[in-house]
């Protein structure tokens, strides 16, 4: 893909944990253990706050500290100096509610039950991080600028969110951004800063979620900052085909509708390619994406100022992570449709109180579901037996034998087409100024999807396993996927999916070439591991509770 020349990366410098005497002295508080009992956990839960910042669609390779050339993240880069940076973090899913619930429960998606956008509000009964922290006397608060976390509501009024969303459980305070319609939901969650200042004397857990980096990129931020990196004089390529409705965004916003109609660098309308993207078009999309990161980074700067001003940096764990990544055309598509490296690789920055162990960069593979066990481990709270991740403290401390997760597992559940079938397709169809010739087939496509995914049926999914070198994606029902495929639909072609895709992600990070046939041994052993995991997950998967009527706040 020649288009991808603006995102130039310098090789990451990996500073492996060195055995400075000083580091050894910076004990993470493992108390002396006696011979028979497990180590006495430090009781840091008595006076340590926790802040978890969850950012949608953030690619680590678009942050300075991970080697990005453009100065998108001066504040995160500064924060990283007193933090531990994880260089190889994998999200458990490519969709926000699914990947986030894995972080909040430390369980794979099918185990916690958050496997569809229309999951019932009580679909997830697994213990969440705020729930456990409440047991230990924490005041819990959340401020979300990601509608994915407050879109399932209880009343028909549609105006007031009850604390009924599956994500608001166990929060004493659940704030949200809701300034108006459409993209204005995805604004920086600055309300969290006020809450922290007002509650600084309490022992608190604050979850901050932001959707500023989600499509349409940076649409909710001031124009000057949104256009920061725009190529000079650029006119959006879609202008010559259609306009963008006001509630969808500004005419030049990188909307879902536009990005989801790009396939292999061609813009599709009327089931045929109508336009071939130029490097400038690509550069424009990335510029808007980067502007969203820069704006989010400003918020991180404000957050750090708030912590410093309130003297909280010494007794607060601050974790910033990507909920998942984002595709920018490397693998033919945009947004976060499949389990590409760009969609599942995540940023993870952990700042321990006082900047303990700060400046380390850890290359070992870790997973989103390791975040919660790490927090509990640090605080000295016994971990719940149901958690499937591992504490990262041994890695952080450089303990011998700590090597991260050899095998990361990823669910592509639900297929995006499942979400389309439930409500999103119709919603988008009425939101866009497409001609009737484009809209009518959408209705037929929607009917076909609904027939393919009957109400109450378990959403279909794909699964993947990843090591430092390999990634295998296993399509559980490739024929059905071909039948319902959105890209098959917009291109008017039948796309072909194999059962097994194996990629050498070191040599081929964009996963262009399936090397399963060339590496039968690797394919066989990874498939065995993947199926073992799949079986273990299926054995304890949560009941799919989408039976009740849900009211969904559509989101941009």
């Amino acid at each position, binding site marked *: 893909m020649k288009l991808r020349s603006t995102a130039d990366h310098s090789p990451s410098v990996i500073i492996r944990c060195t055995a400075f005497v000083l580091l050894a002295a910076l004990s993470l508080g493992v108390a002396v253990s006696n011979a028979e009992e497990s180590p006495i956990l430090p009781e840091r839960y008595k006076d340590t706050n926790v802040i978890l910042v969850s950012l949608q669609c953030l690619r680590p390779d678009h942050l300075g500290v991970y080697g990005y050339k453009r100065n998108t993240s001066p504040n995160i880069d500064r924060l990283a100096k007193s933090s531990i940076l994880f260089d190889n973090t994998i999200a458990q899913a490519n969709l926000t509610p699914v990947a986030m619930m894995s972080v909040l429960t430390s369980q794979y998606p099918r185990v916690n039950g958050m496997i569809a956008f229309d999951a019932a509000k009580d679909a997830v*009964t697994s213990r969440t991080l705020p729930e456990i922290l*409440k047991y230990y006397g924490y005041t819990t608060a959340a401020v979300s600028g990601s509608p994915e976390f407050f879109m399932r509501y209880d009343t028909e009024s549609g105006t007031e969110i009850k604390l009924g969303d599956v994500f608001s459980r166990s929060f004493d305070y659940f704030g949200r951004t809701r300034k108006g319609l459409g993209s204005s939901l995805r604004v920086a969650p600055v309300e969290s800063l006020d809450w922290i200042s007002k509650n600084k004397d309490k022992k608190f857990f604050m979850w901050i979620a932001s959707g500023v980096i989600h499509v349409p990129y940076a649409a909710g931020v001031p124009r000057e900052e949104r256009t920061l990196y725009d190529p000079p004089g650029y006119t959006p390529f879609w202008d010559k085909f259609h306009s963008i409705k006001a509630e969808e965004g500004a005419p030049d916003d990188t909307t879902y509708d536009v990005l989801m109609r790009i396939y292999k660098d061609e813009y599709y309308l009327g089931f045929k390619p109508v336009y071939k993207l130029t490097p400038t078009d690509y550069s424009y999309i990335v510029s808007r994406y980067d502007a969203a990161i820069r704006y989010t980074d400003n918020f991180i700067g404000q957050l750090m100022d708030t912590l410093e001003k309130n003297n909280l940096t010494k007794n607060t764990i601050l974790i910033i992570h990507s909920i998942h990544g984002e595709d920018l055309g490397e693998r033919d598509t945009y947004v976060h449709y499949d389990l590409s490296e760009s969609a599942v690789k995540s940023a993870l920055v952990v700042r321990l109180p006082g900047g303990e162990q700060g400046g380390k960069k850890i290359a070992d593979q870790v997973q989103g579901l390791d975040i919660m066990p790490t927090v509990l481990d640090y605080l000295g709270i016994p971990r719940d*037996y*149901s958690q499937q991740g591992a504490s990262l403290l041994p890695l952080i401390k450089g303990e011998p034998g700590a090597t991260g997760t050899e095998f990361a597992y990823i669910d592509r559940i639900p297929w995006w087409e499942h979400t389309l079938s439930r409500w999103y397709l119709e919603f988008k169809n009425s939101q866009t100024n497409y001609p009737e010739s484009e809209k009518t087939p959408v209705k037929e496509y929607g009917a076909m999807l609904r027939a393919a995914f009957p109400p109450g049926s378990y959403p279909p999914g794909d699964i993947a396993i990843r090591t430092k070198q390999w990634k295998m994606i296993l399509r559980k029902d490739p024929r059905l996927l071909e039948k319902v495929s959105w890209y098959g639909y917009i291109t008017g072609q039948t796309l072909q999916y194999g059962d097994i895709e194996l990629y050498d992600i070191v040599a081929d990070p964009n996963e262009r070439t399936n090397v399963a046939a060339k590496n039968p041994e690797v394919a066989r052993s990874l498939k065995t591991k993947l199926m073992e995991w799949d079986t273990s997950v299926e*054995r*304890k998967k949560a009941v799919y509770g989408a039976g009740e009527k849900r009211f969904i706040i559509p989101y941009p």
Partner: protein
Amino acid sequence: MSQHDNRNESDGALINRREFIKKTAVGVGVAAAAMAMPGFILGKAGAVDVTDLPMKYKDYNVVFVSFDALQAAHVGALGYPGNVTPTIDAMAKQGFNFTNNISVASWTVPASMTWFTGVYPSEHRLTNKFSVFNPPNNNVISNLKKLSPELVTLAEVLKQNGYATGGFTGNAGVSGGFGYSQGFDEYFFEKGKFGSMGVSIPKGLEWLHKNKDKKFFMFLHGYDMHGQNIPVEGFDYRFVDKGYDKRYTGSAAEQEALREEGLEKGTVALRDEDVKFWRAIYDEKIQRTDARFKKFLEEYEKMGLMDKTIFVLTSDHGTEFHEHKRFDHGFSLYDELIHVPLIIKLPKQKTGKVIKDQISSIDVMPTVLDLLDVKMPDNAKKQLRGASLVVGLKGKDVAKDVFFETDYRQYTYKRGIQTKDGWKLIYTLENKSRELYNLKSDPHETKNLVEQEPRRAYELEQRVFAHFKAIGHDLNSRQWIPGLNPVYDSQAKGVQKK
């Protein structure tokens, strides 16, 4: 014994068991020697003070008695005001009376096999009547040898050490068909019955007469107190209030119907007078059983075996009389179901001792082996999960946190922990519900403190899951969906698998 004469002093329904135990503990422990115990005991030559007991009884006999379904709260030696267990109480006063013995399960099949294998029900796997249940034709009865062929039983170990081994039982939950006969030279179980000690005792005595000159291990068991057993001579309703309107008669069918109603609906509709009636029926059964056991002891004494024998008296589980709105046993893990007597009387022991430390029925097998100075065979050395209580007999603190479990038919999978400082968590796997009780302030388990004590509930839940994982049963590795798993034959006939 005057304080025990009036059985109706407390109407039984809501006896604070721990209070009574406390009261009796003082009475037995301090005043035992001075109390007017039957004269032959104190006066007899050769009486040995507790502290002088050798605690090693190589080649002595063991008589292990299970009074099936004997709730701790109905035993005089454990604080019951009614005089329904004089024989058991007398033995308790001469022996070691463990007042806080908690069974590993709340129904016969899983609970009893733990005495004989020293492992938890999840491990010996006799957690249901059937190991395969596919009615009408494909049903396989659970059997120890098939489910857990690696386990060595108490009878097997003793047999290997030269003991004659005989079991004389009331069948049903301890039927030979489940593998309870494993290791016994002779194992009697009355086919098709919830049999009485009225039958098993004579069979046992017959065997004793043949084996009394050998060293022997005898398991004596009967369902006389159990809801499915009715005295052959019928009830005389000795403890029933004269004015009772006879809505119930005490039949096995009534008991079964009440059990089923509770299982189906979650609660049983019973009036206070009905509960009182059922407790009166229970007391009559207990008193009749105690009298049978008295006759057994008289015969036993005539054989001159008393000073050569260790007695272990216990029960597999209790029973419930509407304390938690249900009836019978098996479904729940409340105190009325898992708190059972354990009395160990050593040869020539004449003065008793009350041991209040909380212990578990899992400790019984290691204790018996320890007393007999018999080692587990090499292939089974690591089998025993419990600990010998002999150090406790010598006065050392043996209190421990205990675990228990029940899988009951198509209704439930429950696991629990009870800490030695009086906290109890019951975890129901199929719906992940939790009950937390403070037994010190709430011995009847009426106030679920999960909301008030979330951290304690959380930490105890971690303990339960860690315990079962440590014994090879990761409760978190599967879903728990109740299926149709009959315990009683009446449920297995003609039913369709759900």
